């Protein structure tokens, strides 16, 4: 970011030291450092993953935004790019990966399937959108989104990071330490979201016997 954007405009700095001194807020400095080094988790689910790879290659070059460092381990990743159809069978693995990522972490739902189930929504093994389990920051429409659309989504994520404040973010809040922890779903006769256990039991009991 250039100096004038980083500095607060209200402070006048003497002309002779303008190149050396910048007055800014901690939030801006902190976000400026984070926004251009968002490391994605190297994690492809389906068709969209191929466009994700294409966005990394020479023509589109996501490295321009500091997002080329794909980390295969969740422990080093800042952002989970859910690139493809989330199936019930895969969901526990995705939740586990998400829980293993350190804060701050972001989730980007890439494509129609990750956003809502897309063309496969009616499928019996498909989760109708990852947002039923994970807090999604940016949705990118498309089936699959073009690399340009993906980069536009990444820029939206950077805009979101720019607006965050250290005072309010959950990862420094002692009371909300585990605020983003998602309990692992279980594969039973169908996908069991353990947060909804009581509801599932009640509805199943009220069901007319088949």
């Amino acid at each position: 970011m250039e100096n004038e954007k980083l500095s607060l405009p209200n402070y006048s700095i003497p002309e002779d030291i303008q190149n050396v001194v910048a007055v800014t807020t901690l939030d801006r400095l902190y976000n400026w450092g984070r926004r251009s080094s968002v490391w994605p988790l190297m994690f492809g689910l389906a068709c969209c993953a191929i466009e994700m790879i294409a966005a990394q290659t020479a023509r589109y070059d996501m490295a321009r935004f500091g997002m080329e460092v794909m980390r295969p381990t969740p422990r080093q990743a800042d952002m989970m790019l859910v690139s493809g159809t989330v199936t019930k069978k895969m969901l526990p693995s995705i939740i586990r990966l998400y829980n293993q990522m350190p804060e701050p972490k972001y989730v980007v739902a890439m494509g129609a399937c990750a956003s809502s189930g897309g063309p496969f929504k009616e499928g019996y093994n498909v989760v109708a959108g990852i947002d039923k389990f994970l807090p999604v920051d940016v949705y990118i429409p498309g089936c699959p989104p073009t690399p340009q659309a993906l980069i536009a989504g990444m820029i939206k994520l950077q805009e979101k990071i720019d607006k965050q404040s250290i005072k309010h973010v959950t990862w420094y809040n002692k009371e909300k330490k585990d605020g983003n922890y998602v309990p692992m779903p279980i594969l039973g006769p169908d996908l069991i979201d353990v947060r909804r256990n009581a509801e599932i039991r009640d509805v199943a009991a009220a069901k007319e016997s088949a």
Partner: protein
Amino acid sequence: MVTPLTATVDLVVRFPGTVAADVRPGYTGFIINKENLVEVATAVRDEFGYDLLTAVTAIDYIAENKMEVVYHAYKTTGGAGLVFRVQVERVDPIELPSLIDIWPGVDFQEREAWDLYGIKFTGHPDLRRILMWEGFEGHPLRKDWKEPFFEEETKPFKSRWPDGQHTFAENKNPFRDNLNFPKDFDPEKYVVDKEEDLYASLERYTTKDVEGNMKTDHIVVNLGPHHPSTHGVLRVAVTMDGETIIGLKPVMGYLHRNHDKIGERNTYLQNIPYTDRLDYFNSMSNNFGYCTTVEKLMKIPVAERAEYIRVIMAELSRIQNHLIFIGMLMNDLGTMYTPSLYAFEERELILDIFEAVSGARMMCNYFRFGGVVRDIPDDVLQKIKGLVSERLPAKTDEMERFLNENEILVARLKGIHVLNAEDAIKYSVTGPVLRATGVPYDLRRADPYSIYDRFDFDVAVRQNGDMMDNYLIRFDEIRQSLRILEQALKQIPQGPINSQKAAYQVRVPAGEAYGRIESPKGELGFYVVSNGKPNPYRYHVRPASFVNLTAVESMCRGTKIADFVALLAMLDIVMGELDR
């Protein structure tokens, strides 16, 4: 046109009383008594020479209270296939003898039929669910099994836009989600499956005393489903003795998107965009396979210009697939990114052409029954000519020059055995992997479809069946594809691009058809059964990746775990097609 599946042998004469010809209109082949299945199948392989059993699938004829299993057998020397089927009463438990001893390639396909139809194959050594997880309720492809978001039997649904309002599918389900639980189910009391069956099915390394009473034991390692080298969400459970693999089982279904079930609700035309998403590198080839199959059922010709456009698109698709294969193989071998950046550069140019003709880079949705949806503009044709005659041959040479004699690459690939011809046929492996073992089985020659018989090209074959050959054959195939493209571009005539009128619904007469094409990964088959209604009664995809993966266990046993990654890359699997 596709050669019809007329049987060249008469099983009825050979097995009087136990085999009957299938006389239903639109059907071919033979119906075999359940008790004699193994005997007849052995004769089909040994006496009649149908050594390659490509497709096994089931159909649920609920109205007749019958379950049917269909087998498609072919000869690796080429020619038409033999269709035989078994019908059983639709009363649980449905049992059939397994053909795994005759054609080990049926392994995964029989497991799939068990998973999705609940047909037990007696004698199958490892009959577990394959696409869904153990403990899943029901067998989803049965016609009386309804998915949680079930609305109507067939599309288009009436509820899509009633009175200008939309409704959420979630609101119609009592669980407010894509969920369905049996009556009185209590999630807290549910005992989770610990996958003991999977681990029990792995070959073990027996604990033994070695010198000095030190005990050694096997190690069980799970690779995936989130692993950078598995090309998607494949999981592999491995037992190892030190670094040597002694047992291996792939676990799949992490991208099972229910193509078959959705496809049976869709109309014929609605399925074309779904086929795009099978093998998402080669949407053009998938379209090709599906349209060929349905055209076979409809008995319609394809417009002459469209035939050429189809071949051009399919071959361009093959080139970009093989380029990606090479790039990804290098990634797996440890040359992270640089070679694949070269590959992707050329791929982008081919995708530009796809985008120019169809409007989409990857999911082209370009073919229609009887032709294609849009004509190729002249400037795009010029662009393809430039690519085919200049850029791509030069770049292929360049990649070969950079890579082929690299010392590390040769050390990693040369002499490491993948498959021999006998095993490859046994496991129903098709495509480049089969051809690298010395079997010149390419459907474009062996069972020509479309207009491939008009072109002068060689079937790429390599003899050794090691990793180096598997790698080099991809370059050979790129060269042959370029040859086909050159001829096609010269010969392409002017004219209409579709032999049919554009229609939202197509009329498909009752019957069955199995259409297959040589996709870049191997034999891509579509099995479609029509009952004359606007929706297919049975829609089955026989993916190359899925069946080729059957061989992975025997390929990898005894090799080092580091080579496993490269061996898996050789099969060139893609999860969208593998799991469907």
